[in-house]
């Protein structure tokens, strides 16, 4: 680590330790990007432990429920600890049937938000906010933010293969080196960063050289052809459908343990391609211009749950604009088009369309392995394996791979929030 950014990292570590009473592996991995980590810690601290309409035990239990949608035992472990420290009722940990009705009601929203957020409608919000023991709109906003945060955090944890904490049950178990699959992700960061960029780098679809060339070409020929709306729409749909057909999941790959299953209801409900959603007329694509985070999402969130908008806005902006102008060993690279294509590709998987973006770029800039990886991490994080992590963009450094994962985290969170907040907005009007 360079000494120049060592100091802020240390500061952040101190902060993280003071907040959580531990320095989680997750935080250590994020410290590749100290600017982002600072925002992340502030936001997480705010929504879990500072002012907010929900009681503390509720917050942590919602986090458990959210993490359980992706069978993320790492987050469940940490949040269970926190839950108990906040004086949570131990009986709740026996499973969903033992929790208050109010939390049970939230489960439907949790499920949909995690996998198919485009299905969230006014009716869901209405059901939660009416009747006995209902959710107030402010509480619901808080819950929605927590859900989105922990869904996408699960993506990050799997995507980077965060090791279990030492005090967790499988935190110090031995695993044979050959067995790099399954959901017991091993920290890739324990190996030397350059062991991957070996001879195999060039058998890939191109590597960084080609990517940079493509980026350069894209900016140069920007003023080229005129494209009709149909063509653009087709491109969007092509990206949407062709978005790296994932191989069918091998059933034994994830066999969630008993202690997680008790938090899961309807485990069969998983991500389904937005393009296959059935009637496109009933569920039109989400136009990013008509309900954007900066304008509408922020205003609504901040109104219902004071200050959260500012924190999230900071976090989104930092993640979206984060760049060191490097790519692999090359410096002085304008990575904006690459970053934007990843961001928009993730939004595209959730059916959010940016009018001002030519989705052709996604296919040009993102190689197949990368797309497959991003899609797995976003939609089926529990299926990510060490091999997936190694095989995309082999020339990328670890910090850059973590960067990609951060983008997944934030873009996914924003997508979920946009759908949920739009539903709340519609309910309120």
């Amino acid at each position: 680590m360079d000494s120049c950014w060592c100091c802020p990292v240390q500061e952040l570590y101190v902060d993280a330790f003071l907040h959580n009473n531990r320095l989680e592996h997750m935080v250590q991995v994020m410290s590749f990007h100290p600017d982002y980590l600072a925002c992340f810690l502030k936001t997480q601290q705010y929504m879990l432990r500072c002012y907010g309409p929900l009681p503390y035990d509720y917050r942590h239990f919602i986090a458990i429920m959210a993490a359980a949608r992706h069978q993320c035992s790492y987050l469940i472990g940490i949040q269970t600890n926190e839950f108990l420290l906040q004086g949570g009722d131990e009986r709740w940990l026996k499973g969903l049937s033992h929790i208050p009705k109010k939390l049970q009601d939230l489960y439907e929203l949790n499920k949909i938000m995690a996998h198919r957020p485009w299905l969230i409608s006014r009716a869901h919000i209405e059901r939660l906010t009416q009747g006995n023991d209902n959710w107030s709109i402010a509480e619901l906003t808080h819950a929605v933010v927590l859900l989105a945060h922990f869904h996408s955090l699960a993506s990050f944890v799997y995507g980077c293969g965060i090791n279990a904490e030492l005090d967790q049950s499988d935190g110090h178990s031995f695993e044979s080196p050959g067995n790099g699959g399954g959901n017991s992700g091993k920290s890739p960061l324990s190996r030397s960063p350059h062991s991957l960029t070996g001879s195999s780098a060039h058998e890939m679809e191109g590597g960084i050289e080609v990517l940079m060339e493509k980026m350069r070409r894209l900016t140069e020929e920007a003023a080229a052809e005129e494209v009709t709306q149909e063509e653009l729409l087709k491109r969007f749909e092509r990206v949407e459908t062709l978005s790296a057909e994932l191989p069918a999941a091998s059933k034994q790959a994830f066999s969630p343990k008993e202690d997680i299953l008790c938090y899961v209801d309807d485990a069969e409900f998983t991500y389904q391609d937005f393009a296959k959603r059935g009637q496109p007329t009933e569920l039109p694509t989400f136009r990013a211009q008509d309900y954007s985070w900066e304008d509408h999402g922020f205003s609504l969130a901040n109104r219902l749950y004071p200050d959260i908008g500012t924190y999230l806005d900071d976090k989104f902006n930092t993640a979206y604009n984060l760049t060191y102008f490097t790519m692999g060993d090359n410096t002085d690279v304008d990575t904006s088009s690459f970053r934007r294509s990843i961001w928009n590709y993730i939004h595209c998987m959730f059916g959010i369309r940016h009018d001002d973006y030519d989705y052709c770029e996604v296919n040009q800039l993102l190689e197949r392995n990368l797309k497959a990886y991003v899609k797995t991490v976003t939609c089926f994080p529990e299926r990510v394996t060490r091999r997936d992590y190694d095989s995309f963009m082999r020339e990328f450094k670890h910090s850059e791979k973590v960067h990609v994962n951060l983008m997944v985290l934030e873009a996914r969170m924003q997508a979920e929030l946009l759908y949920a907040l739009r539903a709340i907005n519609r309910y309120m009007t």
Partner: protein
Amino acid sequence: MHHTILEGPLNCLALNRDCSQVVVAGRNVFKIFSIEDQEFQEKVNLRVGRNINLNYSASDVAWNPIQDHLLASAATNGAVVVWDLNRVSRSKQEHVFNNVHKRFVNKVVFHVHESDMLLSGSQDGYMKLFDLRKADVSSSFHGRDGVKDIQYNPSHYFTFAAALENGNIQIWDMRNTSRWERQFTAHNGPVFSLDWHTDEKMWIATAGRDRMIKQQNRVRNTHTVQTIASVAKIKWRPQRKFHISSCSLLLDFSVNVWDIRRPYVPFASFNEHKDCVTGISWKQNNPHVFFSSSKDSTLYQHMFRDATRPANDANPVGISISVHGSVAYASSDKLNSSTTPRSNSYSRLPAVWKRTPERSEQFMMVTSLLNEFEIINSAEAVEDFCMSWFIRSAREYKLSGRSMAEVCEHNAKLADSMKRHQIAQTWRMLKLLYCGKSKKAPPSPVATAINNPKTEVTKDTDAERTEKQEVKKEEKPDTSTVGHGIKNHSDFFFGDGDVDQAVYEYDSHRNMQDGQEWSLPSEAFQPRHEIKETSQPLDPLSENTKGESPSSVNESELNSKRNEQVALSAQSGIKQEILLTPPFNSHLSPWHFTTLVRDMLQSYAEKGDVQTAVTAIIVLGDRIKPHLDELHIEQWFMSYIDLLGRFEMWTRATEIIRMSGHPAVGALNQLSTTIHTHCSQCSKPLLRSGWLCDRCNGQLNVCSVCHLPVRGLYAWCQGCSHGGHLHHIRDWLKTYQHCPTGCGHLCEYT
């Protein structure tokens, strides 16, 4: 006012030069209407052609102010489109500037005086100036962040202002493309809209996500209006110097017109739309007509006379009573003048003075009076108002610690000593009802208990009535009967208004009434007693206790219903007797008195005596709680705690919170429980944690036994100021006498 409904949500609208036509655009709509007297007539549909692409939907549209056939629109895909209505073909698209902007375009605007100059601002941070003769970009300005709005300065040929996503406003000179002339931070968060004032040079108004509308004068921020939601668009009202119209980005669907000098209430508001308003446009030089487009797919033409005036609906009177018995009363001076009958004093004024100011000016001339009244000439009333009984009972009531019977007896005695016999009786009854059974109460106390309420009650009302009359007399020495008093009162009120009116006519800016206004302090009771009249519960129990709390001092009712009341109280006495008889006759049959107790507590609380209700609940505990509404209990507790807070009885309030046993009330004690300490070495406040100092970079409060930081209780020797974990020190002292640090001190802990 009329409107038309279109087939999709609208994003924007624009008027042509002479305001005879309006163009509206949205994602699925792009049409031009001509403005008729009673309706909009569709003239042209611009969304025609072989392939309708995103260039046909717009996020902003502008009409050329010189050449009436030219239009420009900003498409969401980043293109800027120019339309020519004179084209013979069906499609009016003249030119499309593709790939000029990388992100979507937020705003297009024509130059005020040059028909060939078109400026666009985009999310990618660039503003491009197009020359329509060359059909090309002639210059480009980089704002460094997303551009949300641009506006040419109408009084300055080369200047335009840009609103940026980061909250800045930039003033540009078109001749200098490299850098802005001036930049200042206007808002916290994105600025969504800005508008130059048409008449006042250098006046600029901005609005943003932070829910503010600000008017800036060169660099100084002069006026700020706080709205209830993020502001999407603002527009100055023509010919009215201080008026600005605004619409919200979400949740609020009305168009508000504000007078920036009065930022708390809109001057006028138009509530026709059913979804967010996206565009406002005033008819040129006509302050009475404007158009608005909305997400609910409608285009409205509003006339100013249709507006609702929120200020007129606002409550013009406010009143509050302090804990020490003084009354504050605020009222709008409009109220006085409007209720004033047109008396002769008015007509005597010379005709010159009669000119009433314009409505918008009236809006600004609103002043209000704030008067404070104290009761001075009636010791008893003061006594009553100071609520000394409240303070004393709050201090001395026993609520726990002893058996219920003892507690009740104590509280009853206390109430007796303050001549609050009704309350005392209540406590005794509670004791009897809930503790009587076990003692197998002898008949005699029951009998007295039965007889007592009756006599007590009637006596009480009588005494109280006389007492009240006395109070009355003391307060208003000039009135003999209450009924007259009230009449006189209102007469005086109006008369006073007259004087006021005259003053007002002579000099509308000065307000001379403060000193002369009120000589009789008791006048202040007038509005309050009106309020009470409506909320007065009329069940017999509450009638009995009238007068116990000052809030039920209610002369007129007493006066009008005096006879009735006597009858009622007698009746209620009988009722109580009947109800109390069964345990007397046969104390074996169970009698469900809980509902009765509940009603009693409710009536106490509704009369304003939450103290009795709350203390009774605490004493009764689970005997009564299941029968009461959770919400009620919470409300009563909260208001009692609030009252205690006003009397600064914090400890008492905390005790009540602790004894409440109600989760929401109990949570009050959990709020703001953090105490920040200072570093013992450098005195820097420790904000992050109690055991780590950022400056000293070391751990504080290290335990002298285990050398680890102490996070909880720190045991401390006051002789040598060493110490550590409580249990470590305890263990240490079992075997040693000296300080664990080895300083040689013989530590003493008590």
